[in-house]
């Protein structure tokens, strides 16, 4: 009997220590998962500030200047204001769809950050299907927009939601084919492998030079996926008041706002990863061996430099979409669909075949 008791106690304590270990393991798992989220949100605030400053510069205005030095806190102030605004639910709409729509848009875009490598070994989840996961997940966002357009029970919202869905499915295919050519070049769809395939020969090894057509198609399609200005038909304010956002106010509108900038950031990060050499310093003479030396020896220093280089490339690239917004007029819906289906799709298919042929020759 006594022996039994001690055995039971021993087993119990054994289980307790095991569960304790599991809890610690879980905490160590959760820390790196919780830290990127505030980082990404700060990144979005920086984009909003950048966009407002650049727009002001383009239009020869002053731009935000009162909230903090140079108006840095302007985006934060706007977000806080939206938190304090009344959250209206249209009386005739479908309340569940109305609330779930913006959440789906934000969540689906946020998950795609899990495969972006910010630096050497600084990637949340190095999946072997990396870029493919991004493509799969980015198709979920239009469902959220469609839900919110339908749930509002408003004609403008409904049309806007339909347009958003039609636009993103039309430009999804050229985008996917461009990414396919890239992963064909690097023989892997893992984002880390794609960056490492570009690490030789400094900036001469960038996929931008091996895939110029693909880069142009990717740029146009990602602008359309983000609903940026030459393609912002879903919320064309002269035709549809604000598209699918017409009935939204308060924090739900804020979620849409955050989602659109999250999308912009994720596509510029993917341009950096796929075409601009990711975290590599990309200078021809002090390139690969020394940088890898830094990465392997002085872990923290090398990692910080890698993250800094990735972010610098991404934010420098962002100047293109932002200045495009104030340069090009909006297209019509038929022009938009023609561009997607009759121009970009054949070109990206041809680009894929060209890439394959050149790979065949080098086999």
């Amino acid at each position, binding site marked *: 009997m006594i022996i039994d008791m001690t055995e039971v106690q021993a087993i119990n304590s054994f289980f307790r220590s095991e569960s304790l270990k599991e809890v610690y393991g879980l905490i160590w*798992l959760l820390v790196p*998962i919780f830290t990127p*989220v505030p980082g990404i949100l700060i990144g979005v605030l920086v984009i909003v500030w950048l966009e407002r400053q650049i727009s002001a510069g383009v239009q020869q205005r002053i731009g935000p200047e009162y909230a903090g030095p140079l108006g840095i806190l302007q985006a934060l102030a706007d977000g806080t204001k939206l*938190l*304090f*605004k*009344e959250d*209206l*639910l*249209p*009386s*005739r*709409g479908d309340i569940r769809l109305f609330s779930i729509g913006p*959440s789906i848009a*934000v*969540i689906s875009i*946020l*998950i795609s*950050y*899990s495969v972006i490598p910010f630096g050497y070994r600084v990637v*949340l*989840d*190095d*999946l072997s299907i990396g870029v493919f996961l991004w493509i799969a997940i980015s198709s979920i966002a239009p469902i959220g927009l469609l839900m919110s357009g*339908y749930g*509002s029970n*408003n*004609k403008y*919202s*409904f*049309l806007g939601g*339909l347009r958003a*869905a039609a636009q993103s499915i*039309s430009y*999804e*295919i050229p985008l996917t*084919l461009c990414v*396919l050519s890239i992963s064909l070049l690097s*023989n*892997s769809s893992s984002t880390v492998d794609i960056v490492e395939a570009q690490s030789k020969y400094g900036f001469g090894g960038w996929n931008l030079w091996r895939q110029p057509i693909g880069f142009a198609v990717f740029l146009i399609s990602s602008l359309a996926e983000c609903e940026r200005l030459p393609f912002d038909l879903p919320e064309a304010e002269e035709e549809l*008041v604000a598209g699918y956002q017409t*009935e939204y106010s*308060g*924090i739900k509108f*804020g*979620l849409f706002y955050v989602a659109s900038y999250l999308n912009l950031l994720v596509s510029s990060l993917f341009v950096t990863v796929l075409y601009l050499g990711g975290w590599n310093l990309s200078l021809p003479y002090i390139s690969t061996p020394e940088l890898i030396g830094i990465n392997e020896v002085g872990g923290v220093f090398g990692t910080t430099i890698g993250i800094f280089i990735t972010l610098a490339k991404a934010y420098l690239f962002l100047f293109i979409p932002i200045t495009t917004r104030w340069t090009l007029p909006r297209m019509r*819906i*038929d022009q938009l*669909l*023609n561009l997607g*289906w*009759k121009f970009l*799709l054949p070109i990206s*298919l041809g680009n*894929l*075949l060209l890439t*394959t042929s050149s*790979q*065949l020759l080098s*086999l």
Partner: protein
Amino acid sequence: MFLLHEYDIFWAFLITSSVIPIFAFLISGVLAPISEGPEKLSSYESGIEPMGDAWLQFRIRYYMFALVFVVFDVETVFLYPWAMSFDVLGVSVFIEALIFVLIPIVGSVYAWRKGALEWS
């Protein structure tokens, strides 16, 4: 659902990111004022009384584009495994993939000629 260990972090990140909208709704529910009224909650139609329901028929064109999209999307998904092991498979599989790509291209030319890609 997935038995592979590498997807653990993905699921955890999914849960983390779904917390964000819930959190935002909670904070806004505490802070935001509530003053409802019948006019305020009616749907917006440029200031006049809303006429009828918005849940009605819409253009069939959207449906046609969705169909063509499904064809090409499935095609691209099938091309991914081929691209991953391209250097192993070699020329013969390249020709097979070429034939596979040509079939949807012929289909899309047909759809184009029939006017499925026209808006008006």
